[in-house]
């Protein structure tokens, strides 16, 4: 339904394509809100751009990398995720209450929003399409290992899988295990190994080799 409407009831305008009902609704809302001075086009533009450029998984990755390299920070993150994350300047919309979940050799954490699509935007950016899909939301709870395997993450039988359901009040951030062979790496370089998926729990942090090549 997003393809240009090319049917012939376009009234003969050269460039005008009849918008779908939802497109017309959104345009109506925007034009009315701007007319009434409630918002401006620029403001909306800026905001959308900010979500594209300023928010994103690199922030969550910095939290993880710091937890890998700074034991005192890791401890604070364990005890009070929200405060420890705020130390790095990340707070606000959608990131008010964050609990860090630490993966280990024995436990693997993954989170989902079964109700809608709660997502810590500030830390992880805009949620991916699959996160919002009904199949992911339902199946990660009922068949977590199967779903993880579909993401290419096959966990050994000995690893216990914990599935966490976010709510309006509680958000999660998975701290993946630090990959082997990264002992000498800087915090900044380590952050480059931390993917969005690994912080949701559907992937692992990249190895240096994976990060260096096309993984």
């Amino acid at each position, binding site marked *: *339904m*997003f393809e240009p409407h090319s049917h012939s009831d376009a*009234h003969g*305008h050269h460039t*005008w394509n*009849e*918008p779908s*009902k*939802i*497109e*017309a*609704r*959104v*345009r*109506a*809302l*925007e*034009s*009315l*809100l*701007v007319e009434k001075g*409630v*918002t401006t086009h620029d*403001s*909306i*533009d800026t*905001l*959308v751009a900010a*979500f*594209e450029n300023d*928010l*994103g*998984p690199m922030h969550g*990755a910095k939290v993880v990398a710091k937890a890998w390299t700074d034991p005192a920070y890791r401890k604070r993150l364990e005890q009070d995720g929200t405060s420890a994350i705020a130390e790095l300047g990340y707070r606000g*919309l*959608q990131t*008010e209450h964050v609990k860090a979940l630490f993966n280990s050799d024995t436990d693997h954490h993954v989170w989902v929003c079964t109700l*809608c*699509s*709660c*997502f810590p*935007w500030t830390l992880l*950016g*805009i*949620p*991916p*399409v*699959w996160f*919002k899909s009904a199949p992911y939301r339902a199946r990660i709870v009922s068949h977590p290992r199967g779903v993880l395997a579909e993401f290419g993450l096959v966990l050994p039988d000995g690893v216990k899988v914990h599935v966490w359901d976010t709510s*309006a*009040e509680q958000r999660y951030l998975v701290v993946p295990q630090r990959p082997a062979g990264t002992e000498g790496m800087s915090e900044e370089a380590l952050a*480059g190994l*931390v*993917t*969005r*998926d690994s912080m949701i729990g559907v*992937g692992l942090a*990249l190895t240096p080799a*994976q990060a260096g090549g*096309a993984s």
Partner: protein
Amino acid sequence: MTTCPTRASAIPEMDGELAYPRSNGEPVFAAPWQSRAFGMVVDLHKAGQFPWDEFKQRLIAEIRAGRPADVPADTSEYYYQWVEAFSRLVVETGLLDEGEIAAREREFQTGIRQEVF
């Protein structure tokens, strides 16, 4: 708190600082109307027009109500619900009048009005 956005570009590719694995780079907003709808809600919230919870509760209600028959069963479903929740919010908080939304919507649909600006 809740919810999520829309966008037609890939999820932000952060300057190569993160090498995204597969499944990154997929469109998060499947069409411009989705990113505009997303932007409006967050913008108005940030401007203090309504507490986030006011929007969130309406979105939850829309999602619980399920997909209307005329909405395609694809990833855009979520943003239909988003727009519906936002439409209710602006009417119920008195920002806009239901009739004027409908009238303006018709103007766009018929081409009487073609530019949002």
